[in-house]
């Protein structure tokens, strides 16, 4: 099948590329746009290392095709970093050593931010069990998750309490 033209917005910038239909979103981001912050871990939707935001919802970049993103708004770790949207979460991860090798971290941050945004909307600090449940689609081999839960819990508390 021949390549298709797609136009989308990636991290606030308009992008137009010609891609093969079989190209996954994460391969498109990494190889065509050189946005290497999104990582490839399993390529079958289990590990969550490729988690990015498409039209405001977190998705697995390995389970979505680039051609499906024609007209979409895509946000990756590079965009989330540059906009400052998750600066407090990144700082909490750094202070709590909630990452070791860092390979799962961009996806983990995107998944955590998804929970934190909802928590902020309903003004409710999620329990540790709820945090664990929400992050249960993101595989981390290094930390054992305890530190990640600590960091997310701390940010949830700070956001809900200080920004009511």
């Amino acid at each position, binding site marked *: 099948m021949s390549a298709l033209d797609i136009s989308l917005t990636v991290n606030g910038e308009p992008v137009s590329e010609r891609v093969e239909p079989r190209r996954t979103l994460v391969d498109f981001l990494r190889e065509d746009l050189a946005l290497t912050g999104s990582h490839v871990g399993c390529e079958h939707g289990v*590990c969550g290392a490729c988690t990015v935001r498409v039209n405001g919802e977190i998705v697995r970049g390995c389970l979505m095709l680039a051609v499906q993103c024609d007209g979409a708004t895509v946000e990756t770790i590079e965009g989330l970093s540059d906009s400052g949207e998750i600066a407090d979460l990144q700082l909490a991860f750094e202070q709590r050593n909630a990452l070791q*090798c860092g390979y799962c*971290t961009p996806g983990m941050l995107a998944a955590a931010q998804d929970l934190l945004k909802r928590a902020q909307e309903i003004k409710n600090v999620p329990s540790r069990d709820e945090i664990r449940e929400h*992050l249960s689609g993101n595989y981390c081999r*290094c930390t054992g*998750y305890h530190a*990640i839960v600590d960091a997310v819990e701390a940010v949830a508390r700070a956001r809900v309490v200080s920004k009511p």
Partner: protein
Amino acid sequence: MKITGDSPPVLSALDRPNSYIGRSVPRPNLQRLTQGRGLYVSDVSLPRMAHVAFVRSPHAHAKIKNISADAARKSPGVIAVVTGPELAKVMTPWVGVLTHLKGLKSAPQSPIAVDVACWQGEAVAAVVARSRAEAEDGCELVEVDYTPLPAVTDPETALDAKTPVIHSSLGDNLCFERKLDVGAVDKAFAEADAVVETTFMFGRHTGVTTEPRALVADWNAGDRRMTVYHGTQAPHMMQDLFAKHLGLASDQVRVITKDVGGSFGIKVHCYADEMATVALSKLLTRPVKFVADRIESFVTDIHARDHRVKAKIGVNKDGTITAFEIDDLTGVGPYSVYPRTSGIEANQVVSLVGGPYACANYRAQARVVFTNKNVMCQYRAVGHPLAVAVTEGLVELAAAKIGMDPLEMRRRNLIADDAYPCTSAAGLKFEKLSHHESLAHLDAMMNYAGLRAEQKNLRDKGIYRGLGFASFIEVTNPSAAFYGVGGARITSQDGATVKLDSQGAIIVHTGVTEQGQGAESVIAQVAATAFGVSIDKVRVVTGDTDNTPYGGGTWASRAAGIGGEAAWQAGKALRDNVLAVAGAMLQAKPEALDIRNGIVVDKANGTERLPLEELARVAYFRPDTLPPGFQAELMATRHYVPRAWPFAFTNGIQASYLEVDTDTGFVKLLKHWCVEDCGTIINPQLVDEQIRGGVVQGIGAALFEQCLYDERGQMLNGNMADYLVPMAAEMPDIDCGHVVSPTADSELGAKGAGEAGTAGAPACIMNAINDALRPLGAQPLTDMPFTPDKILRALGKV
């Protein structure tokens, strides 16, 4: 807020005015990683770079009759299709043996199979193309004509006369054998009040690093050098291997290791497909990239822990352990893995069983056999999870048999804290351990008595909770005794170079590598303290064989203890050199000066004399103003290797509290504790996180992880949907505690902390499950992983 703040220094012996020893300073490299700005090998792209994908054997054992690649060669984007015999012209085969493991044997292994494929997943041809996708398209078009051969898949029958021999040149399927008989074992069993005997089974599992193995090899025919960007734990070791098997001098090979997406022992071995990638780059004179996909990771990343251990313990009514005996059998795949060999894991089991206990009678046998499954080798905590599970499983079964509390049983048998130095029955030399203090700490930390009361109350309501424990010892800071003495070119020493830059900051080059464990932070903390600057004035450089001192890298929990000591000594040496310059500038005696927070001060009263920035300006740009004949030396290198002890043993104890659903067989982990003694703690937060991460890998082994093979040698669950790993929702919070017994072998006194969590956790979980189910009369579970169906079977429900 649960975020731990910076904690004050705890160690007076190393307490310099701006000491970072014992403080939880954040790692300097984390912002790069939280922003997605790391540079993993998967991210590396070079001009003219090609990608390789491998055609892999679908058979566990098969003769390769013919490979037809014409269609693949015509596939769009394909640059070359290369077979084993073709690649053999560029690269020599290797044999994974060590002379100190007497009798260990293996067969030559090639980068791509020649004539015979020996496991499902072994590469039989390489397709190099402009993109990975095109390389995989090409693989689809390669036709391989195989003659299937009988597969050896059961270790129990691998040595039987009627079982085919995998490598006829070796004569049989025995890779390695070790026997040990110490004390009077038969007498001790005969005179014991009770003897408990059982068989422990351990599921073959693997590392599942989040970033798969990856490298980019770049042979530059112009300067005749091979540069390899490699996600490895041991750059200098790989430099040596690449050079040796390509017929190059080692200075013709440069290995660069940037960010590594997890390693845990998976990335410290010689992999055939990685060697092939390097050889392909030389053959094709262009950069070639290989990134394993998850499916190939499962069938080619080393597996570990596939052991069957028959075990026996003798015990008296007063709780005294009279003897241990084990018979270990393990099937390691068709080759002993190069260069560390596949004999070490079983060797460790023999050495470590019974290790925490003062029991003089011990008999062990271990046999390592070849099979037609993926290769096995050293993965985090090598051998320890098995030895600890066998020992601690026996101890708790014996305690139950004589009706003694499991902690009391340990109190009566653990080597006394004042008995050191001493030697174990297996011959391990212990400098200073703290089993009893650790146990007391754990007892208090977890409120043992309170949990026992809660457990009893809940049992009356039909809720079955269990408490399980595991005392352990752990090999860290290895000397040359581990590999060097056996002829492997794996260095146990490590080096650090510290240099003053022109603005008064320092740059540290270290031979140890960062795998996410925090080595860069530890090295920076140590160098800043030894030299006398704040930590933001330290930059650490790792992972480049052209630019770092020759070193072993990261394995066997050595980075902090060995690399840290080298950095400590180098920092002190540079301080002396800089104070010589300061003395010349200030007309003062160098020994009366010190460096504190980046300023040269009078040692006696701390009076500030000269900022380092000014000293560096003069030394670098106005050396003409220094006294005639004085030469400033602003770079210092020191090396360190443990000499007094072959290994710095650490110790500790873990506990697990869990609940078993007796209707479904599901296990809910409620809490986990670990008290560990790793000597001097350089960064408490990093030590705790190593323990937590390690514990969870051990929990994976106990509850979820197993590479399932059928009798034909086909792996049945080689993907992340079917091979289960610990995820956040199932894992407990983990509390850590510490006892500090520094090693006197180094000034820092630090031992390793990277593997203790993994060593003890499986035993804890096993013991806790059995503790939960004991009142129901369930057969003790000793066959990991403890899946719901095994639990229901033990309960007689299915």
